[in-house]
């Protein structure tokens, strides 16, 4: 039996991996040149506790469940996950009512450990917070991760378990017969399919339209961010939310897994034709600045190292749209994957495979004995104890050649990232964090281009930042 998953974001990656547990031929098709470059690469990276979603929503059904799976998943797949906890803060008694509402909602959703803290306690836990804050809803189970790494790690592990990964091909249509999809058609190939899972993120509605199945219209809801230097490590230790408003969870301050501080996101609904334009704006960044300064007054934007924006796949229902199609019986939609999609994805992936495919579609899938859930991450030599690092250098001197100074990435890590499939500068960046630090590639980008060209056996002019059109250098100065 053949399963085709469309889209290698966090959903497609985890669904594909889940499928490789079974005796199936699984193919994952992604239009970008690498995995995790859609919505999954630009978001808040929070593994939400799960108090935020009204209990009747699909979001609520999967959020706390997904959160509970992250611990083990991060160990199996060797990506960073830190259960740092979160605060929702209240400046006054009216906002306190919001916290109380969230607390009740969270308890209904099965979120453990929620409690409301008063000023002294919350300030002793987070001394940088605005002293005018009176209360905080504390959710100890909230966490942070590296979202693209979840997708990269899941795909690597799935490939090890037999997944066929197809990069740089766009799904353009389907061949159907007897109310079922027979083939998935891309701009380059055709793939036979007994099961199709649509995980195309912002474009999932368009894929659904191509297949003639039910869908909800998706529009991008933009969130802009400012990332601050690691120098501020510890400014806040937890995810700090303001009390929520009707439209969003608000603009937050949170630590990133590698010690930076992230500010954002805004929430702005954009027309459907803006799905490929995650732009930042002056107004958006100004909003991020002023809103987060209210939470943490000492925030210093002279320590900004970059700004970026992400697009939430939002629907009018503001809820995930997940299910087997009524009209095309072998087609599964995982659609409208807005927040808390990153959190919910592991639970959704299990649900798709165990309940939708096996129960609802009544397909008997055989578990593979050979399935190995473990993936080893790329070793970060500079974080090893010195004696161990020394041994690694004795084995391979490239482990002692530092390429990225800001984030301490050695040549060996770069080469290993290429071995695992990085073909572009962003591919290296998301796998190793090289070019991701304070100087943003000022010292190492050229070196990395040379290593890429050498390892891939191509001219340096062939190196791309990410997509085909994102060339970096243009020919020789002189022959």
């Amino acid at each position, binding site marked *: 039996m053949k399963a085709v998953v469309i889209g290698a974001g966090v959903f497609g990656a985890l669904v594909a991996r889940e499928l490789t547990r079974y005796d199936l031929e699984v193919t994952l098709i992604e239009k970008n040149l690498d995995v995790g470059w859609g919505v999954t690469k630009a978001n808040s990276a929070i593994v939400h506790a799960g108090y935020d979603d009204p209990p009747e929503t699909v979001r609520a059904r999967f959020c706390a469940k997904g959160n509970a799976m992250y611990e083990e998943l991060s160990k199996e797949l060797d990506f960073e996950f830190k259960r740092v906890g979160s605060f929702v803060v209240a400046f006054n008694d009216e906002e306190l009512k919001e916290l109380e509402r969230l607390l009740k909602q969270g308890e209904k959703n099965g979120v453990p450990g929620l409690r409301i803290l008063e000023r002294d306690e919350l300030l002793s836990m987070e001394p940088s917070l605005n002293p005018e804050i009176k209360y905080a809803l504390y959710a100890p189970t909230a966490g942070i991760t590296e979202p693209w790494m979840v997708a990269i790690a899941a795909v690597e592990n799935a490939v090890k378990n037999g997944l066929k990964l197809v990069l740089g091909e766009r799904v353009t249509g389907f061949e159907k017969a007897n109310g079922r999809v027979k083939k998935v058609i891309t701009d380059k190939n055709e793939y036979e399919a007994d099961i199709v899972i649509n995980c195309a993120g912002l474009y999932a509605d368009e894929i659904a339209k191509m297949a003639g199945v039910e869908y909800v219209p998706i529009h991008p809801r933009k969130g802009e961010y400012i*990332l601050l230097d690691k120098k501020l490590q510890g400014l806040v230790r937890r995810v700090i939310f303001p009390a929520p408003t009707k439209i969003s969870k608000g603009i937050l301050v949170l630590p990133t897994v590698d010690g930076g501080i992230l500010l954002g996101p805004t929430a702005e609904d954009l027309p459907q034709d803006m799905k490929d334009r995650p732009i930042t704006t002056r107004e958006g960044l100004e909003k991020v600045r002023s809103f987060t300064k209210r939470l943490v007054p000492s925030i210093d934007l002279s320590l900004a*190292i970059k700004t970026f924006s992400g697009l939430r796949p939002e629907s009018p229902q503001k809820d995930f749209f997940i299910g087997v199609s009524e009209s095309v019986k072998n087609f599964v939609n995982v659609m409208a994957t807005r927040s808390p999609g990153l959190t919910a994805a592991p639970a959704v992936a299990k649900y798709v495979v165990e309940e939708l495919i096996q129960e609802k579609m009544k397909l008997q899938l055989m578990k593979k004995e050979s399935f190995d859930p473990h993936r080893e991450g790329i070793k970060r030599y*500079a974080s090893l104890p010195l004696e161990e*690092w020394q041994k690694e250098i004795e084995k391979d001197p490239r482990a002692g050649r530092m390429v990225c100074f800001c984030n301490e990435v050695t040549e060996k890590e770069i080469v290993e990232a290429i071995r695992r499939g990085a073909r572009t500068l962003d591919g290296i960046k998301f796998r190793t964090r090289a070019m991701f630090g304070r100087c*943003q*590639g000022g*010292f190492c980008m050229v070196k990395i281009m040379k290593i890429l060209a050498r390892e891939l056996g191509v001219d340096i002019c062939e190196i791309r930042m990410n997509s085909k059109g994102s060339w970096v250098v*243009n020919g020789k100065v002189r022959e």
Partner: protein
Amino acid sequence: MRVDVMIIGAGAAGMAAAIKAKEEGAEVLLVERDDRTGGILNQCIHNGFGLHYFKQELTGPEYAERFQEKMDKLGIKAVTNAYVKQIGNREVILVTEKGIERIEVGALVYAVGARERPFGSLMIPGDRPSGIFTAGVAQRLINIENHLPGKRALILGSGDIGLIMARRLVLEGMEVVGVVERLPYPGGLLRNVVQCLEDYDIPLYLSSTVVEVRGRERLEEVVVAKVDESFNPIPGTEKVFKIDTLVVSAGLIPQLKLVDSLVNKNPTSKGVATSNIGQTSTDWIFSAGNCTAVFDLVDYVTYEGETAGKYAAKFVKGEVKGGRIPIKPGKNAAVVHPLWYIPIEPLTLYIRVKRPMEKGRLVAGKFERVFEDLVPSEMLRVRIPDRYLEGLDEIVVSIEEVI
């Protein structure tokens, strides 16, 4: 392993320090994280180095070569591709492809230079396409790697590096549509404005900045607008430039990472604070060059490196003695370096003014002198004879406008 003086960074400052420390009789170890010595000089292939020190105009690589030759003569061999993981108490952890070594040091000279302010930190809105380079990266691509960054470029920032890069791009066959500067005056030396822009008909847009970058994959265009005195864009002044390359020359930032928790900073230069002998607030750590203050001229960096190297060696021999007299920035002084005076060595002050002045009187302790045509882009270097400093318990440095 133990050495008398370890020098981190083999740019102009580090090489000069190593040479003087060795001549002073110390056993030295010079380490460099790049694959060669010379630092930023390697990629500066234009003329303009050494007029003070050698009374001769050299290119960057030629200037570096002179010091490399001197090191060869003295038997100083730099360890390249060497990464300093950490500086502890008189101990440095060094990582190379040969392994990891703990090195005990009598004194350290920290000479790691500056880094470029990255595009991301400017918080310019828009897309995030390829084709945006810092000036140093563009310079390195062209001058060392022999590759062009694009076809049509705009330069953001009119410091010397931006100006020099504008000319270089044109000379190598690229089109440069302009240089954009948010200040009402150019950031670089006047001679560079003339020789790099005017001679090549490259327009300079003052009081302007890039307010948006556009391009889905590669850069396609940028929007430039005029700014008011607080650098806010003025609506209605936008102008679109179709380019594929944006070169960002937004300034250099002294690198502090390794010594951040070990030494005091100079609040005016944002670099490591030192005395006039290069000693920092931690007695065994000396520092010189662009990590103490960003210098216009390599010659100055060399002098500073020499002093730091010499006194680091003397420190190991126990020959550095005497109290420190604090030097305080006063009126109109944007940058003042050094921050302490130890009377065992004459005081050389480096000063940048806050704003352009036709005529200004520099006052430092009991010393006074009038200078003409003072601009923030040109660093003043002034030797202050000892007699003007005698008996002072602090030295205030200020510049009075003379009208």
